[in-house]
């Protein structure tokens, strides 16, 4: 999907992007596979629960997404650090390496709102399988939203002749989740309806934040698992399974 969506200037370079639920590509088969099932192997009952959860997600998700383009630079004496919008981040080597040639960076957030997770929480006590599946659906919608925003930013940057990197989030690739506070300090308060708790976790939970490198010499990697240190990861297993069965993996 390589189309730009309408975006609105919120001042000081902050853009909010008009993404609707219908703009998202939610891969039902991928949700099934993330739960561990091979194609066609999920019991029918759980398939029905999945469809119910997907229908709820379409009704309950209130999608918001946006970004701020900031200057990006490196810290010569610290190979695992980058400067984004004048703030030094200890992103560690994987992210710093990806942003090494970036002249700018898009600091982004997006969220599907609180209603889906509230419904998920309400389902858990009486129907934990539905609650679990609804949680997986909420995550899939949030990831699809982040993918769509990533795509939009790519199209916007291409208009200037710039390329973009993969998206990187605090909490992954050894980048401490505590740095979320610094990332959010670059954005307006409660941007996209997201607040941070004391432990740097986002509310609503089904939100994604991060950074995308922008520049003429940056590159997009097809596959991130090779450079990530997390061995026992749901998404690694998912991508490995897809590769083994010829479905092809998706990079973020």
């Amino acid at each position: 999907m390589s189309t730009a969506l309408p975006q609105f200037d919120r001042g000081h370079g902050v853009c909010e992007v008009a993404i609707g639920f219908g703009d998202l590509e939610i891969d039902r088969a991928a949700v099934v596979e993330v739960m561990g099932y091979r194609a066609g192997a999920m019991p029918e009952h759980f398939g029905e629960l999945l469809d119910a959860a997907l229908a709820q997600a379409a009704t309950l998700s209130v999608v918001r997404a946006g970004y701020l383009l900031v200057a990006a630079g490196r810290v010569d004496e610290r190979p695992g650090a980058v400067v984004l919008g004048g703030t030094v981040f200890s992103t560690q080597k994987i992210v710093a390496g990806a942003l090494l040639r970036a002249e700018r960076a898009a600091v982004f957030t997006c969220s599907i709102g609180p209603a889906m997770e509230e419904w998920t929480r309400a389902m858990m006590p009486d129907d934990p399988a539905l609650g679990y599946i609804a949680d997986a659906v909420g995550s899939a919608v949030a990831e699809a939203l982040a993918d769509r925003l990533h795509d939009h930013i790519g199209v916007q940057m291409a208009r200037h002749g710039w390329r973009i990197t993969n998206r990187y989030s605090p909490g992954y690739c050894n980048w401490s989740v505590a740095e979320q506070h610094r990332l959010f300090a670059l954005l307006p308060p409660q941007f996209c309806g997201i607040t941070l708790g004391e432990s740097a976790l986002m509310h609503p939970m089904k939100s994604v934040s991060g950074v995308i490198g922008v520049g003429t010499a940056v590159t997009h990697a097809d596959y991130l698992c090779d450079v990530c240190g997390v061995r026992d990861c749901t998404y690694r297993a998912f991508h490995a399974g897809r590769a083994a069965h010829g479905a092809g993996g998706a990079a973020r």
Partner: protein
Amino acid sequence: MSDLVDQIGSCIERGKVNLASPYPKDLKGQEGADEYARQAIAAGIGPERILGACNDGMQRIGAKFGRGEAFVPELLMAAKAMNAVMAHLKPFFAAGTVKPKGQFVLGTVAGDLHDIGKNLVSMVVAGNGWEVVDLGVDVKPAKFLDAVRSHPGCVVGLSALLTTTMGNMAATVKEIKAQFPSTVVIVGGAPLSAEAAAQMGADGYAPDPQGAAAFLAQFAAAA
């Protein structure tokens, strides 16, 4: 009578909760763990045998989970069926006829909101006859310390999903061990390994809910 006990174990393994439950499809319209537990108690079968059936059923589905033949939804359905049985056993626990094997204080460490794995551990451990004190998610070390103080002799379980919250887990283990050196702590979660658990000073590592139950069984046997 042993048929009823076997049926309870089988219903838990298959995740057949009760008569009204449409899952699994091939058992639709048949009685489930709830009805068989009621019948077993009415037939005078002791709560320990019923608890044993819970344990057996969870062990079998847990083994399938370990072999990749079942996944989290199946495990959750099994746990739900087990909870239906446990509801019938509550009066026996309350009266002291059946005593819990111990107290297990459990929580997801600070900075981490993931609760599915933690909830599975909670359900499986409860099904093995332990009283579970579930502290929830994003639990700071002080809350674990308060719980250990309130539940002397408890075993503590720490859960984490994010690689980046392993530091918080290590800090929590350290604080518990500093204030309560004899308290046994086990850790589990996707980013962990036995080596990482040992490095942070934990007494045990549980790769899955059954691992936690097995560790606690060993602990109870040795106590």
